């Protein structure tokens, strides 16, 4: 079987729709992951021993179970409780929660490198805990965590391909449909792979530049 450019151009619009979905899902779940991870890290820091155990349990759950199993779990389980969400919402939520667990570890790593003197200084200045977190700790945490966080967002982008398992038309899902409709698997997957690379490698390159500059 040889490479057929006509076929490539025929399926390209469909694949680009997949790219659009992929980007949309990445943005949605990255927002959940980055904000949720920050909140989890703060909550773990300020909560009591019991609260910390609960957070640890959820982190272990989301980090120890494959995304695929969690996706199927959400997809088949929620309707049994009468909650019928579109597959895409479930996918965004699951990816977001899993990566919130990963991101919270990163934020926590940033938090423990902040010297204790800052807390003392905030107390001495009479800052309320809210202001202390909002103005002192969170900016520092974000600054220290940002290279690792960007890395996770890029990983998240690659992992969106799992969502095709529950029928979300992400790039790889579109490629598979194009493949089995025409029994030509060479072009759809090659083009899909090239698109993933084209969207990913510039950011990986920028990230490595960013890391050498700031870390």
């Amino acid at each position, binding site marked *: 079987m040889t490479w057929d450019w006509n076929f490539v151009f025929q399926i390209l619009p469909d694949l680009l729709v997949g790219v659009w979905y992929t980007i949309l899902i990445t943005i949605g779940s990255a927002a959940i992951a980055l904000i949720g991870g920050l909140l989890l890290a703060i909550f773990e820091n300020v909560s009591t021993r019991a609260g910390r155990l609960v957070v640890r349990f959820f982190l272990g759950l989301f980090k120890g*179970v494959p995304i695929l199993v969690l996706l199927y779990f959400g997809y088949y389980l929620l309707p049994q409780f009468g909650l019928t969400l579109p597959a895409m919402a479930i996918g965004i939520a699951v990816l977001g929660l899993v990566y919130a667990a990963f991101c919270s570890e990163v934020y926590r790593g940033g938090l423990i490198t902040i010297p204790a003197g800052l807390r003392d200084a905030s107390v001495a200045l009479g800052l309320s805990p809210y202001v202390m977190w909002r103005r002192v700790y969170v900016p520092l945490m974000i600054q220290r965590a940002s290279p690792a966080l960007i890395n996770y967002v890029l990983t998240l982008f690659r992992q969106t391909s799992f969502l095709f398992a529950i029928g979300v038309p992400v790039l790889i899902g579109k490629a598979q449909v194009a493949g089995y409709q025409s029994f030509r698997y060479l072009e759809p997957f090659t083009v899909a792979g090239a698109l993933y690379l084209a969207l990913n490698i510039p950011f990986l390159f920028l990230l490595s530049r960013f890391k050498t500059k700031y870390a």
Partner: protein
Amino acid sequence: MKAVLEYWPALYQGLLTTIWVAMCSITGAAVGSLILGPLRMSSSRGVRLFALFIIEFIRGASALVALFWVFYSLPSMPHMPRLSPMVASILVLSLIGASYGAEIVRGGILAIPRGQLDASHALGLGKFRTLTKVVLPQALSQIVPSFAGLAADMVKWTSIVSFVGVRDLVYVGDSIRTATYETVSVYVVLGAIYWALCFICELIFQCVEHFLPLNKALRVTKCRSQPVPRAQMQTEGVKP
């Protein structure tokens, strides 16, 4: 839950398949990253760029895309073999693991003080022997803990092999779900098994860490892994 446990023999087969795929691909990734990592730091620009290209190329395409490409598209190219689902999945997972592991190996090697390299050079050791006899034995105690995290991730990545028809845990779980409609219990069991597998994987790597040359040497000399600060040494006195 009872209905699911009746299918335990099938689930057990799936578990064995998952463990087999995970073991093969983690081993493959370890070997691959030990090759790619040093190549990535080669003194020749060509080799370095080649290794960088391979690493970014494999990493940039997601695991699923790579797997589908190798399984569906590769046989369409001339002179390419049609791989069985198992071989294709182990190959792809190993390559992806190796491309992530190469960065870990690189980090570990970079952490070795430059003086060690100069000393080996002064002793007349070649590059390969410097790497295998001096740098890697020390770097391994940095590499292995990070690699343990990657290995636990790889156990989870094995779940994608069900898409090309390897009868692993997810595949078996899905057929049990369609047979019994016990969705909740099937996925609770699957989640628990995967969680336990990750946990066991980390335990195994903790054992491996115990037998690394540097850690062993440190235990023999009863030295702490971090050097004692000078001020502390003077006040406490170093115990013989």
